[in-house]
C-alpha cells in the first residue's frame, strides 16, 4: 500500500527580487512499512521535503498524498488532524514543551485531540517501557539528557499509533553512543510495529538503518 506518494513536487522561496527553487519536480512513492532515509548536502531541500510530507509547509507546485489523501486540498484543520493521527514527528532539537513533564509531553497529541488522558495510562506505560523511561515520567525536559529528550519525542510521536514517523535529523544533536541506541530503537519500531519511517540525515552510517535511501542534490533526486 502507498503510504506516501509525491507527484511533480516543487518548492521555491523568495530570495531578494526573485524566487529560488529548492525542490524541482520530485516524484516518488513510499510504501507501508518502509524505512526511507533522505540524504543530501546542505541546501539540497531534505528538511523542506520532510515538512512538505508532514503538511507543515505547502508546496509551490505538485502534490503530496498521505494515506491516499491529497494534502493540497486539505484544510488547515484536516492537516492538523492528519498530524495528530497519521503522522508522528521527531525533530533534531526534540521540540518538547519545556514546562510539561515527560508523561504530559507524551500525552500532548491526545489532549489536543480532546481525548481523556486517564484512559490511555496503559498505552502510556507501554510506550514508556519501549523507550525505557518509566522511572523518568515525572521529570521535565530540562532534567533530561539530549538522548532521553529525543526518546520522549519518539514516545510522543508513537502515542497516537501513527502509520508514519517523520524524523528530521533525529541524531543531529546527540553523541554517537546515544545516536546508535536511538537508531536501533527506530529500527525496532519499524520492524516490530510495521511503522513507515522517513528520516532526513547527513550520516551515511545512520542512513543505512533504512531499507531505502533517497539522495537529493540541488532539489532533484539523484
Amino acid at each position, binding site marked *: 500500500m502507498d503510504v506516501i506518494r509525491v507527484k511533480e513536487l516543487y518548492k521555491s522561496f523568495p530570495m531578494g527580487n526573485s524566487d529560488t527553487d529548492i525542490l524541482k519536480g520530485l516524484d516518488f512513492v513510499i510504501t507501508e512499512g518502509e524505512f526511507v532515509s533522505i540524504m543530501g548536502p546542505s541546501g539540497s531541500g531534505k528538511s523542506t521535503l520532510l515538512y512538505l510530507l508532514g503538511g507543515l509547509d505547502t508546496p509551490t507546485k505538485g502534490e503530496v498524498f498521505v494515506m491516499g489523501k491529497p494534502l493540497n486540498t486539505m484544510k*488547515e484543520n484536516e492537516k492538523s488532524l492528519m498530524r495528530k493521527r497519521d503522522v508522528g514527528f521527531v525533530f533534531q532539537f526534540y521540540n518538547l514543551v519545556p*514546562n510539561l513533564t515527560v508523561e504530559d509531553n507524551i500525552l500532548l497529541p491526545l489532549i489536543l485531540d480532546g481525548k481523556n488522558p486517564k484512559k490511555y495510562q496503559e498505552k502510556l506505560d507501554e510506550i514508556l517501557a519501549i523507550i525505557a523511561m518509566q522511572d523518568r515520567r515525572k521529570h521535565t525536559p530540562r532534567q533530561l539528557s539530549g538522548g532521553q529528550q529525543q526518546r520522549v519525542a519518539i514516545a510522543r510521536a508513537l502515542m497516537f499509533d501513527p502509520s508514519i514517523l517523520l524524523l528530521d535529523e533525529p541524531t543531529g544533536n546527540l553523541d554517537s553512543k546515544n545516536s546508535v541506541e536511538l537508531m536501533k530503537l527506530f529500527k525496532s519500531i519499524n520492524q516490530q510495529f510495521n511503522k513507515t519511517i522517513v528520516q532526513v540525515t547527513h550520516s551515511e552510517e545512520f542512513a543505512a538503518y533504512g531499507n531505502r535511501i533517497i539522495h537529493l542534490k540541488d532539489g532533484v533526486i539523484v
Partner: protein
Amino acid sequence: MKIILKYIGTSMWEKKLRLLLFVVSIAFSTALLMVSMGIVRIQLDTIRRSVTDVLEEHEIMIASNTGADFFALDTLEQVGIDRVIPSIVLPSVLRNQDFESVMLYARDIDVISQYRFVEGSLETFMGAHTIISQRVAVYLGLALGDILEVTIAGAPIGLTVVGIVENAGLFYQDQRQQFNMLVPYGYVSEALGVEGLYNHVTARQTLDDTAASMALFNAHHEDFRAFAIYQEDIVIASVRNQQMTFFIMLAFIMLVATVILFGAFKLIMTERQKVIGTFFSQGATKRQMKLLLLSEGLMYGLLGGLVGILLGLGALYALHYSAAPLRAYGVIPRFVFEWELGFIALGFAMLFSVFACYVPVRSINRYEVKELILEQSPTLPNVKKKKFVVGMIFLISCFGMVYFGGDLAVTLSPLTLVLALCGLILVYPFIVSRLVKTLFPVFFPYVRFTALSMNNIRYSSSLRNNIAIMMIALISVITVVSLGKGIERIVIEAYTTLHFDIRVDQIKINDRDTRATIFAYLETHPLVQADSISEITYAHGHINGEYAQLEGIEPVKFAELLTYIDFSYKAGSYLEYLHPERHHIIASKTAANRLHLAIGDFVDLEINSVVSTFKVVGIVDAKLWNGGDTFFIHNDHMKEIFHNHNSIYFFHTTIAPSEAVDEIRSYFRDVGGITQTHQEMERMNTEQNQQLISMLNFFSLFAVIMASFGAINNMFISFLQRKKDFAVMASVGATRGQIGRMLVMESVLCVGFALVALLLYVSLHMRIVSQLAHSIGFSVDIQFVFLDSALLLMLSGVIYVLATIPLLMQSKKISIIQALKYE
C-alpha cells in the same frame, strides 16, 4: 484539561518579572476603574450617613406656607409622613468656652427618649438645662452640673449639663468647635415668646419614594409644604468632576497598560515560537493554539484583577477614611464594600487582558508551522503605508473636528482624543521609516554605530512600538502638567477678578428678621463699606427634572463683585435681563450643555418643592466658578418664590481686612456663620486644587514608570528577534561594548523620535484636551507649558534609557554559537 491548566500555570510562573508586569498593569487599571466607579458611592455613603444620622433617619422637612418662620402644628396631618419631630433650632456660641459654634435643639421630652444616656437622665431635663454628647464632654472636659453660657433671644443664659449621651442621631457629627445641644422646649419657647410654635419640623416618609410622600403630604395641606432634606443628585453632582478626573486617568493608564500587555504578549509569542510550533507539529489547530494563549491572557487578567480589587479596596478605604468628617476623633463610619463592584472590576480585568492579548495572539495566523519550529520570523507584508494613510485620515478628521467643529467638538472630544492618539500611533512608523531611510546614508560615514542603531529602529517593529509606548506616557505627562497649570491659572484668575475683602458663608438664617438684623449689622458697621455688600443666595434644585445649582444674585452688585465671568453679548450684558419682575434665568455653558438648553427656552425650575417657569435669557462661560455648572436668577425670586435663605455676603472693609476680620468673625459666630478674608479663601481653594493636581501628577508619574516597564519588554523582544544579527556582528569582531552602545543608542533614538512626534502633535492634543475638559465641566483652556513639562519629559527620557540596563546585562550572555546554530 488538568495538563493544559498545568501548562498555562507553569508558563505564567516561568518568568516572574513578566508575570509581575502583567499583574501590575492589569491591577492598576482595575484599581483605577474601581476607584472611578466607587468614589461616588463612597461620597454618597459618607454624606448619607452623616446627614441621615443627624436627621434621625428622617427624610422630610416641613415648613410653613405662610412664610412665617415659627408656626403651630395644630392643623398638620400625618399623611405621607409619620414620626414628626418638632423643634426650635437656634444657632449660638459658647461664651465661657472658646467660642464654639453650637446649635440648640429645643424639644419636648417625648421626642428625645431615644438617646442613650452615659451620665444623667431625662428626669431633671427642664428649665435652663442641657444635654450634650459624650464626645463633646470629653473634648471640653465637661461633667454633669457644669454650666455652658449661650445666648438665647439676645440674652446670655447659663445652661446646666444634666445629661451626657452617646454620639448618635443629632450628636453624630459633633466636633470640638461645632456641635449640637438639646434644651427643654418649654424653657426656650417661653424665653422667645413662641409657645406652641416651632421653626424646625422633620418627619419620616411613609411611602417608599420620598417625592411621592412629599406630593401626598403637600396635596393634603395648604398651610404646610414638605421638602426633601437630603437629595442624592446634589452629592452626585458634587463628585462628578472628581469621578471624571479618575476616568480620564483610567483612560491613559489603560492605554499604556494595553500597549504594555500587547508588547509582553508579543514577547511571549516570540519566546514560545518553538513551543507553539511543537504544539502544531503534534496536531494542534490554530484555533486551539489561540484559545490556549488567550486562556493564559485570561488567567493574567484573573490574577491582575484580584490584586487590582485589593488595591482598589485599599484606595477606596483611603478615600472613605479621608472623607470621614470625624476622623480627627477616631470616628470612621463602617466601610461597606459592594461585591457587585468587585465582580465588575474582575470582569473588566479579564476582558481587558484578553483584549490586549488578542492582537499578538491573532498573529499566529501569519505563521507557517515550519517557521515556528525553526524560530524564523514570518515574512510580513509591508503594511506601514496603509496604516499611514488610515492614520492620516484620522488625524485630518480630528484636526477638522477640533478647529471647525464648534460645540460638537466639545461633545465628541473623548472620541476625538482616542482617534487622534490612534492616528498618531498609525502614522509614526512610516514617518520614522522614511526619515531613517533619508538620514542613514548621511550619518553613516560619520557616526557608524548611531546610524546602525537608527537603521535598527527602521527594521524592528518592537523598537518602533517603544516609540508608541513612550509617546503615550509622555503625552499623559504633558497633559497632566498642562491641565494642572491650567487649573492653577484659572483659580488665580478667579481670585484676582473677585472683588471683596471679606466673605461670610453658611449662615443658618431661619427667619426674615434675622436676615434683616444681619444686613443692618453689616450696613451700619464702621468697618464695612455699606455700598459694597453683595448677597448671593444659594440653592440646590431641579431644572426640567435634572439637578441644578442655583445662585440668586443682585445683578448690579454681582457685576461689581465678579468680573471673572463675562456676561456681555453684542448688545449689552445678560445681567440686565435679570429683573425682579421677570422670570429670567442665565445658565453657564456647562449647565446648558448638560441640560441641552438654548437661549429662549422655557424651563421648569423647582426649589424646595416649589415649581416656577423661567426663560433662559443668557448662556455664559462660568469657567470654574462653582464648578462651572450653575444657573443665575434674581435674588428676589430666590427669596420670594422659593423661600430660600442660604446666603453668602461679600463686602469691602474700611480698614485692612486682616485687622477687621476678627471683630466681624466674632459676631457671625453667634449665627453660625463662617467668616473668611479674600486671602484666606484663595489659600484654601488653591490647596484644594493642589490635591487634585497632586493626584494627577501621581498618575502621570505612574504612567511613565509603567511605560518604562513596557519599554524594557519591547527592547527584549527586539533583542531576541535580532539575536542572530548581534551574533553575526560579534562573530565578525564587534565588541560587547560596541553592541551595548548600539542598544543604548537605540533607546536614546526612540526617546528622541517620541519627543519629536510629541512636539508635532502637542498643539492638536492640547486643543482636544481643552475641549475634553470643557465637556466634563472644567472650563479651562489648556496650553502646553513647555518649561514645566520639560523637566518631567527629561526625567521620563532618562528612565527609558536606564531601562536599557537589564538588556545590556542580557546581551553579555549572548552565545554566538547558540544564536547561529540554525545557520
